[in-house]
């Protein structure tokens, strides 16, 4: 009873950690665990939140990193677009 719950939570914890290694967001994690491990998203999200509580620093840094990444990606895309545009303009000239 308790043991199986505990081990299940531990499993979810482990899986979430793996996702963290992949820099996934909570939502991505929920989806992945649901898809690959048949874990209800609500459970994933609960365990995630609890992990966050226990490891505040980690998750703060994690969030910051991912946010930066997001901006970086965005910037990159923008630049890509710009360059693509400039080449086309050049070509047309």
């Amino acid at each position: 009873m308790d043991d199986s719950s505990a081990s299940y939570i531990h499993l979810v914890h482990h899986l979430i950690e793996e996702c963290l290694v992949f820099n996934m967001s909570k939502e991505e994690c929920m989806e992945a665990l649901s898809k690959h491990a048949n874990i209800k998203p609500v459970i994933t999200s609960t365990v995630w939140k609890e992990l966050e509580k226990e490891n505040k620093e980690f998750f703060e840094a994690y969030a910051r990193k991912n946010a930066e990444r997001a901006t970086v990606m965005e910037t990159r895309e923008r630049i890509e677009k710009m360059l693509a545009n400039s080449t086309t303009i050049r070509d047309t000239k």
Partner: protein
Amino acid sequence: MLAVSPLRNTSKDENQGEMASTFAIDTHEFPDFSDTNLLDSIDFDDLFAGINDSDVLPDLEMDPEILAEFSAGGGDQESEMKASASVEKVEENNFKKEEEDRVSSCGSGAASASASGSNFSKEEEIVSKREEPVSASLKTLAKDGDKGRSKSSTQTKNNNNNNNQGKRKMKVDWTPELHRRFVQAVEQLGVDKAVPSRILELMGIDCLTRHNIASHLQKYRSHRKHLLAREAEAASWSHRRQMYGGATVPSGGKRDMNPWIAPTMGFPPMTPPMHPPHFRPLHVWGHPSMDQSLMHMWPKPVAHSPPPSWAQPRPPHWHHQQVPNGLTPGTPCLPQPLVTTRFPAPPVPGIPSHHHAMYKVEPPGIGVPTGQSGPHPLIDFHPSIESIDAAIGDVLSKPWQPLPLGLKPPSLDSVMGELQRQGVPKIPPSCA
């Protein structure tokens, strides 16, 4: 061995009277084992009672229990009859030779009882026949003794389990904390050089035996091999993808490979000597110092300066690539330093191949000149489905494996409470 002198009383003849026997053994004094089983009726307790001090049985240490067993067990009738019959004669001989009233002198008695060849032979017979039941009974007793001993030893072992006494092979519960210390010790020594005795010393836990450590080390090494194999597989797989992705600039792609790999620790293409230093992060399942440095890394992602010392192993490729690029924080190449510094951060880079596998290669043409694409890991921040699936599958199949990040586990109560609130009465749920 044969105690012949006392037997004189068991015979039905009238020789008894002649014998100045200190043993008053009479058949009807004993429990009636069987009428014809004369040997059985011998009470060896009394038999040997008076000869404990003497070296009556040098070869055979017979306890009263054993003797009882011996007396209980019967030889064949014939031998017994013979034995009893010849006992008298032997007794006579013994009586004659007073210095030979020792049981053990059966042999010497036999030797000295040269009075009659028949006696001698009979004595031998007695001896041999006696020895058989004796040894048989002894063996039985020994077996029982062993059983008893093993039983008690098992019990002791069970007790020891509780007491943590490592006399025998104890079942060690490798908790994450214990394992962490183990890994720390191993890494300190160098995984290939790690010797169980040294590891034990370094760990300084007296509840562990060298054997525990040795078997755990074996498991650990095979686990690592497995991880490295996975990494290799992922590397080759990602490599191929990268090659395809970097079709535009093959050479650049090649260069991509190196730096792409460079940030990742414990990567197979790296030379083996790199592994021990790479190995360090491996041990950090929740290692506090690592976590702290981890934290430090994240807040300042842009670190063009050489990564902290513990990321040293990778410099050759990384620096090499970075310098010519002239990366500045403002460039689109921003991710690169971000990434490379980040890689040392995860305590686990050496372990999971999915770390590396996750980095899909983006085409170098992203707007970054070829030369600059070198250090670009071209990391796609979103891991590929296959690697996630692989990682998840791995966890599901081997839940006993250590956690990659070693985060503090959530409090069970709060999780359960929260789940109850959410309407999930019990876990694991019957359906997803």
